[in-house]
Structures are given as structure tokens and as C-alpha cells.
């Protein structure tokens, strides 16, 4: 007791101090690499275009889009079937997840490739069909479900199993004493993922599948902002009203009904499929066993190292940016701050920010700031930061503060943040993998990330190159995920809310 001095700044070994050091480390690392990022602001007069956009958003033209109900139905149908099949595949895999390295690696691989790239790949075989769309969601989702379900199952309370008599079979034990204990969590996660699937389903429209995104992207790209505005509103409404129409009694009927809209199913040309898998995806020299040719093939891949560098750089900056945005924004939607109207508005803003596709956010910033990494950075930070903020606010709402008379700043700093921070950081580190995946989508800004080159390879129909780059991307994602897992805070301040919401829900 003799040397109980006040500790130095950030010194000490408490949980939150360790977390704070870790976050500051992340931000410091981000600042260190910032000079390598291209952040020039080069624009002159964005206001005319922005004005047109705003006008469109405020005067949406709901009738401009033809077959809007059909597009909405397909968006929901793809999302629903993708989630459903992903769940059916992912669940058995979750049971094997901790036992088989192969299953873990396989899941990590399918997860690491963005839905849009799956769609581009499958498009070559199944064409523009519901099969492409549903498989593009199902495949990565199976991997995600396997991982998150496995994490949830791992947390199953042991007491009921211990209370069972000896000699109960594995299956009986599982369905009586294990599954019911985690059912609520599994189904809440599945529901959350369905919302993610809605977003992904819209995104699939960007590569030409006939969802809302198909029309949204065309209208936005061609500057028909009244139509784009209407479509965005429709999309926000669909997400916001999910609780109303996404009832568990209603969903099977929606799934069944949407089946009738999903056709025509493609005739799968076996020869074409085989050629694609066995020839098109592989470098020609490799198939011929021509090693020097392979070296040359390798040399033709444009700028691989800079692409990896850009991808990692943007990923790191996006992660640090999301942390700051999430810290600033979560009180907007929390019951501890403001009053009812401000919270409604706050929630609205967060839904808007996390539901607007990053690609659109990035385009708006591109107009304002000119081409550089800056628009992409802002878009990634805002989108992902808002998403994390939303989840953190939900966790915060489950906390009952000890003293009531605190001013808002003290409540934030002393009551809530210390309890939430571990969870927030865990969400962020989960999210890092997703952010890396998303950097791929921002190639249109002229930032040559891996995704930019993958998109090019698909456009030039050089599938072998695209496939190779996809493998590199997947490897990179897996590495980042492993790193994030290594530094993810494991021990969190123990609140009921955090136990109810596994951090896996950030992997949207």
C-alpha cells in the first residue's frame, strides 16, 4: 500500500486501459501509413450535380421505374432463399467447425470472397438467373453461418447437459439440452443476417441481376436522380419495415410465393460448366505444364504488389475511421441521450448511412472531393462506423446506469463507454475483414485495389487472372481475419447485453 501513486497516462493493467492502448495503437498505425495514401482534394464545382442529387432525393419519382414491384419481389426472394439455403448448409458445418480444420479453412475461403465476386464468377456459368443470385448469397453465407453458429453453440450453457442421465444419445442430447438453450440467439442472428442479405441482394443488381440495385445503379449512373431517389427511399423503407413484414409466420409464404417469380431457371450447359471449371479458370501455361510460360503469365498480371498495398492501406484506414465514427455516432440512437424525436432522427440517420451502398456514398464524395483515396475512406468509415454505432447503441440500451443525475458527457465517459468499449472494439475487429472485402468495390474511383483488377479481369473475360486475384484476395482476407482475431479483445466488461449479442453480428 505504500506506493499507491496516481498512475501515468494510460499506464496500468485494467481491461479498459489495455483496450484503449490497443485502439490508440490502431490509430497511430493508421496515421503512420497516411502519408502513403493519396488524399488530394481536386474538385472545383460539385454543387450543380449535388444539387440535382438532392432534388432527386427530395422529389422522388416512384413511377419512373418499370416493373418496380417485380424488382422488389426479386430482391426479397433472392435474400430470403440465399439466407435460407446458407443456413441449411451452414448449420451442419457449424457442428463440425471446431473439429475439422478442413471445414474451417473452407468456410474461411468462401467467406473471404465478396458476394459480388461470387456473382461475377457464377454469372459465367449460370448466366443472369436466380440461380446465380441465390448461389452468390448462399455460398459465402454458408461460411459465415458456419462460423457464427459455431461460436454461438460454443457458448451453450453446460448445466442442462450435465443434468441429463447417462447414456443419452448425441442427437437427443443436442435437440433437448443444447439447441433450445441457444435457439433464441441463433434465430436472432439469422434474422440479422437476413437484413444483410437484403442489402447484398440489392448490390447484386449492380452486376446486372434484376433486383432493385439494377435500376438503382442505372438511374444513379445516368443521373436520373428522381428515379434513383425513389428507389433509395423504397430500399430504406424495406429495411426499416423489416420487423413488420419479416414475421416468422409470414416468411415461409413469402419464400414460397417468390419461387414463382424467380424463373426461368437456366439450362445448365454441362460442357460449358466443365470447360469453365477445368480450363477457363486456370492459367493456360499451367494446364500445359509450361513453367516458363507460367512465369510470363504471372508477369502480365498488372501491379499485384501495389494492389495488395492499396487494399491493405484502405482497409486499415477504413477500420480506424469506422472506430472514430462509431464512437461519435452511437449516442445518437441510444436511449441514454437526447429525447424521443432526436433518437428517432438519430436512428434514421444511422439506418440511412448503413443502408446506402458504399458505392453511392463514395460517388457522392468523389464529386465533392475529386478522385483519390479520400472518398473511399470516408465512404467506408461512415458506412461501417454507422453500422457498428447502431449495434453499440442497442447494447447500451440494455445497460441501467448506476447514477441518474450525471450530465450527458459524464454518463458517456464514466457510465456507458467503459462497459461498451470492449464490445465495440470486438465488433470493429470482426468488421475489419468485411472492410477489406469492401475495399474491392471501390475500384471505380481509380484506386487500384485488388478488387479493381478483379473487376477488370472479369470485364476482359480473363477468368484465369480473375480467379488468381480472387485467391490472392481470399488469402489476404484470411490473414487479416486471423490478425484481427489475435488482437480482438476477448474479455469484455461483463454486461448481460454483450452476452446476448455475439460480436459475430458485425460480419455483415
Amino acid at each position: 500500500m505504500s506506493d499507491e501513486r496516481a498512475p501515468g497516462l494510460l499506464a496500468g493493467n485494467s481491461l479498459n486501459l489495455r483496450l484503449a492502448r490497443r485502439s490508440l495503437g490502431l490509430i497511430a498505425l493508421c496515421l503512420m501509413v497516411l502519408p502513403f495514401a493519396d488524399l488530394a482534394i481536386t474538385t472545383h464545382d460539385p454543387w450543380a450535380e449535388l444539387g440535382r442529387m438532392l432534388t432527386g432525393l427530395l422529389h422522388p419519382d416512384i413511377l419512373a421505374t418499370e416493373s418496380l414491384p417485380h424488382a422488389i419481389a426479386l430482391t426479397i426472394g433472392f435474400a430470403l432463399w440465399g439466407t435460407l439455403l446458407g443456413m441449411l448448409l451452414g448449420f451442419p458445418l457449424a457442428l463440425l467447425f471446431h473439429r475439422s480444420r478442413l471445414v474451417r479453412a473452407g468456410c474461411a475461403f468462401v467467406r473471404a470472397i465478396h458476394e459480388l465476386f461470387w456473382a461475377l464468377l457464377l454469372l459465367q456459368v449460370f448466366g443472369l438467373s436466380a440461380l446465380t443470385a441465390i448461389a452468390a448469397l448462399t455460398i459465402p453465407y454458408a461460411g459465415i453461418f458456419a462460423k457464427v453458429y459455431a461460436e454461438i453453440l460454443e457458448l451453450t450453457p453446460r448445466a442442462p447437459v450435465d443434468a441429463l442421465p447417462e447414456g443419452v444419445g448425441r442427437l437427443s442430447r443436442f435437440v433437448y439440452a443444447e439447441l433450445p438453450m441457444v435457439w433464441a440467439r441463433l434465430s436472432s442472428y439469422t434474422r440479422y443476417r437476413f437484413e444483410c442479405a437484403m442489402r447484398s441482394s440489392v448490390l447484386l443488381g449492380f452486376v446486372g441481376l434484376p433486383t432493385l440495385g439494377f435500376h438503382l445503379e442505372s438511374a444513379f449512373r445516368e443521373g436520373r436522380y428522381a428515379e434513383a431517389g425513389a428507389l433509395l427511399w423504397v430500399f430504406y423503407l424495406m429495411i426499416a419495415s423489416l420487423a413488420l413484414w419479416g414475421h416468422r409466420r409470414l416468411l415461409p409464404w413469402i419464400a414460397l410465393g417468390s419461387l414463382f417469380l424467380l424463373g426461368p431457371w437456366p439450362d445448365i450447359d454441362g460442357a460449358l460448366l466443365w470447360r469453365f471449371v477445368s480450363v477457363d479458370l486456370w492459367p493456360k501455361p499451367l494446364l500445359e505444364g509450361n513453367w516458363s510460360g507460367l512465369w510470363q503469365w504471372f508477369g502480365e498480371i498488372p501491379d499485384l504488389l501495389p494492389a495488395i498495398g492499396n487494399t491493405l492501406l484502405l482497409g486499415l484506414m477504413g477500420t480506424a475511421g469506422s472506430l472514430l465514427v462509431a464512437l461519435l455516432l452511437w449516442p445518437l440512437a441510444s436511449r441514454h441521450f437526447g429525447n424521443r424525436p432526436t433518437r428517432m432522427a438519430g436512428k434514421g440517420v444511422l439506418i440511412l448511412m448503413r443502408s446506402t451502398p458504399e458505392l453511392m456514398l463514395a460517388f457522392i464524395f468523389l464529386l465533392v472531393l475529386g478522385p483519390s483515396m479520400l472518398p473511399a475512406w470516408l465512404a467506408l468509415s461512415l458506412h461501417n462506423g454507422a453500422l457498428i454505432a447502431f449495434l453499440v447503441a442497442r447494447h447500451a440500451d440494455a445497460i441501467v446506469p448506476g447514477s441518474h443525475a450525471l450530465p450527458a458527457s459524464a454518463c458517456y465517459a464514466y457510465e456507458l463507454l467503459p462497459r461498451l468499449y470492449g464490445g465495440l472494439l470486438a465488433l470493429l475487429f470482426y468488421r475489419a475483414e468485411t472492410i477489406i472485402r469492401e475495399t474491392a468495390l471501390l475500384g471505380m474511383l481509380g484506386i487500384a485495389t485488388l478488387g479493381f483488377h478483379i473487376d477488370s479481369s472479369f470485364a476482359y473475360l480473363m477468368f484465369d487472372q480473375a480467379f488468381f486475384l480472387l485467391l490472392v484476395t481470399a488469402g489476404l482476407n484470411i490473414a487479416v481475419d486471423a490478425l484481427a482475431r489475435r488482437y480482438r479483445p476477448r474479455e469484455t466488461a461483463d454486461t448481460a447485453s454483450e452476452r446476448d449479442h455475439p460480436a459475430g453480428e458485425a460480419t455483415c
Partner: protein
Amino acid sequence: MKELVHFDGEALGHARHTVLADLTLGLQDGQRVALLGPSGVGKSTLLATLRERLGQRAAWCPQEHGLVPPLSVYHNIYMGRLEHHSALANLVNLLRPRRDAWRDIQALCAELGLSGLLKRPVVQLSGGQRQRVAIARALYQVRDVFLGDELVASIDPYQARRLLTMIQRQHATCVIALHQRELALTHFDHVWGLRDGQLILDAPAHELTLADLDTLYPDAGSTDTRPEPA
């Protein structure tokens, strides 16, 4: 009299540390044992070891109940005999209760004051009701020896006596951990007392007084004789 389990200078505990050292003890067939001692002294460890040794002969009612809250009272009790049916039968039973099992469990519930609650999820029950569901599950096992860990902690004294009588009517042999010292003397014929990792009391109930039992507790003599909450 036959001895069912015997410990001869054994050490019980978990992988890393010993909870009960140098334990010498025997459980006789037909013996009703009250297990006393302060919280954390190793009562649960001793019961778990007894359960292990007795295997199929022991019915088991753990301290935290080990119930599955989202499932109904019926299904929770049914789990007592889960190993008697095939996996398929168990699956079907989740959707549509077996008629014979339903009848038996209904009768059991009537005795335990749980009538009309069979279909209710355990999560909606009070603490006392849950305790009785846990006891019902153990009774439904129909075994020779009843092992119970603080079964009557959250139940009023009248109910507690009634439940103990019921359990003992069905099981000639039982070992039940408790805090209520009066019950130990009135409803059991033998007492094991634990303190500081040792068995310090192993005697017939009729030879003991409440004062003898007080020596098991560190704060003996204080006015607070209420059981600690489980």
C-alpha cells in the same frame, strides 16, 4: 447392510486443486443422508463423485437445476428418461408428446403441485416451481438412490418437508445437501458434515443436536440461522 459406495482416504477435486482431502466415508444401502456444510466447502463435488460412482443407480437433481428454460415443463421432466427412448422417438416427442410419458408426468406433477403447467415453458415459472420441476425430473428417472444438491433452498419450510417426504418415499437411499439443520435432524437418519475441506462429522442423526451441527459453520453462534441463498 450393503455398502453402495466407499471412499478410503481419497482426495476429491477438479483437475487443478483438491476440494476434499483424505476422505474416508461409506454410503450404506437404505441410508438417508443429509449433507451439511458452508457454501463452497465441497458438497457439490462430493455429490458429483457419488453420482459418478453410482452410475445408473442414481437419480440426480443438481443445484442450479440444469433445466432448459425454453422447453415446456413436460419436456424438462421427460429428459429424466431421455436415454430410454430412441433418438427418433425423442425427436417425435418434441413435436407431439408420447401418450404414456404424458400420463406419468401428469401424475407426478399433480403430486408436486405443478398441475396444469405441463405445457408451460420453464422460463415462465417462478423459482420455487422450477425447483419442483427439477425434482420431478429426478423422480421421473426412477432410480435406487436419490442425489440432490440444495433442493429445498428456495422453498418454504412446509413445502420442503413435503418434498423430502415424497423423495424418501420413493428412494430408500438418498444423499441430499442442505442448509436447514432442523430438517437434517428430523428427516434424515445420518449426517455428513463438511468443513475446511474435511469430513468432520459422520454420525447418525439421532445422536446429534443443533449445537453439534453449528460447529460446521465458521460463524456459528451468530443469530443468523437462515440458509444462504443458493
